[in-house]
């Protein structure tokens, strides 16, 4: 099979920027709002999510010629649910603090639209390697997106970064950024999650609008310049004929 140069790289990067599942496609919003109180919880959620996405994408892609068209969706749901159960049991055994913090949201990866959406839209039609790269990109894009939200919420809400509470294998440390008494605890509340998400989406919309404006301005200038050139050419040719 022939393919363009740099296809794999673009396939990987599209999940992080151009088709970011959270900020561009607005999918998987429930865990993004619920598990972003602390950066640590967000990292944990992102890792678990990526593992499920990668494993299910690989298996769906491997089985894409065996599963008949008719029972595609049921088969995918069972595959995803099985991987979620496996991940859940591993988390419970090895990282009990993470299991307690995320709670029911580990199980809710099953109904996360991104996993099923990638299985149906990509892994069911492409080779194992492409699906793996796509899933890695999407998982990393989602993880980075929820970490971004968690950074704002944790710094503004508690005034400090703290690590070691959930991932107990690293020693506990706390980094005070905003002096005590000046933090805005609203950002730790549900309302703060909505506000942070709204502001990030607004910033993205602003950048997009700005780019579109610049582009249309450039096109306009180009058009005017061309018109003027045509006019000049017409005038000059008209002058010559006289």
């Amino acid at each position: 099979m022939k393919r363009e140069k740099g296809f794999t790289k673009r396939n990987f990067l599209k999940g992080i920027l151009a088709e970011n599942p959270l900020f561009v496609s607005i999918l998987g919003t429930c865990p993004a709002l619920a598990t972003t109180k602390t950066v640590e919880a967000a990292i944990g959620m992102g890792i678990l999510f990526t593992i499920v996405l990668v494993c299910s994408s690989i298996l769906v892609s491997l089985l894409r010629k065996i599963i008949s068209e008719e029972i595609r969706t049921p088969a995918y749901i069972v595959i995803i649910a099985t991987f979620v159960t496996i991940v859940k049991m591993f988390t419970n055994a090895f990282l009990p603090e993470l299991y307690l913090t995320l709670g029911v949201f580990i199980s809710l990866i099953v109904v996360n639209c991104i996993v099923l959406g990638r299985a149906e839209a990509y892994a069911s039609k492409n080779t194992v390697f492409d699906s793996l790269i796509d899933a890695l990109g999407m998982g990393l894009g989602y993880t980075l997106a929820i970490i971004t939200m968690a950074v704002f919420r944790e710094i503004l809400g508690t005034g400090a970064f703290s690590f070691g509470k959930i991932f107990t294998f690293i020693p506990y440390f706390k980094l005070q950024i905003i002096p005590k008494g000046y933090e805005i605890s609203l950002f730790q509340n549900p309302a703060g999650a909505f506000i942070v998400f709204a502001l990030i989406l607004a910033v993205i919309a602003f950048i997009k609008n700005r780019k579109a404006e610049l582009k249309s301005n450039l096109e306009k200038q180009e058009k005017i310049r061309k018109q003027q050139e045509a006019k000049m050419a017409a005038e000059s040719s008209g002058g010559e004929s006289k």
Partner: protein
Amino acid sequence: MMKILVTFVLAIISSMLIDNVVLSRFYGICPFLGVSKKVKSSLGMGLAVVFVIMLATLICWPLYQLLQLAGIAFMDTVAYILVIASLVQLVGLFIKKYSPTLYKNLGIYLPLITTNCAVLGVVQSNTDQALTFLDSIANALGTSIGFLIVIVLFSCIRVRLESANTPKAFKGLPIALIVAAIMALAFMGLQGLFSGINL
């Protein structure tokens, strides 16, 4: 008897208003944002979710006891998603066959209910908290009605937002999320509603 009834009603109200599904537990944000541009469609979605959550809870509680008996309690998530997905398909089948009007209004949202976190979230959290049958029903009823109330209220506000003069970058979703944040603040004010009641 009286005491049980009061506890039941209080549990419904507390999971409906104080600990609202969407605004404080963050289940079902996708349909909350996606299907709330028109009051009519949000009402349809909300009612469908109430119906599916109630049915799923009624089936999944006994099912979990059976799973425990068989020694495969760890397979609960797989079993629940199978139950929910087949419920949605069966309800859809019924509507498709016998009620074209209902299908016209709800048909598009049926596949969305399977991937609605609220349904699996309620059933799973009932299991994780080891609630009794009565408490599970109260939780399911309160949660689903809470979802219906919030999505209808939100769509009413969004209809007005359409004609409002918002900054260009905030048009559409961002301003809707700000509205949701203000609603979450308002619902936070209901905390401590029952602080004076002792049972």
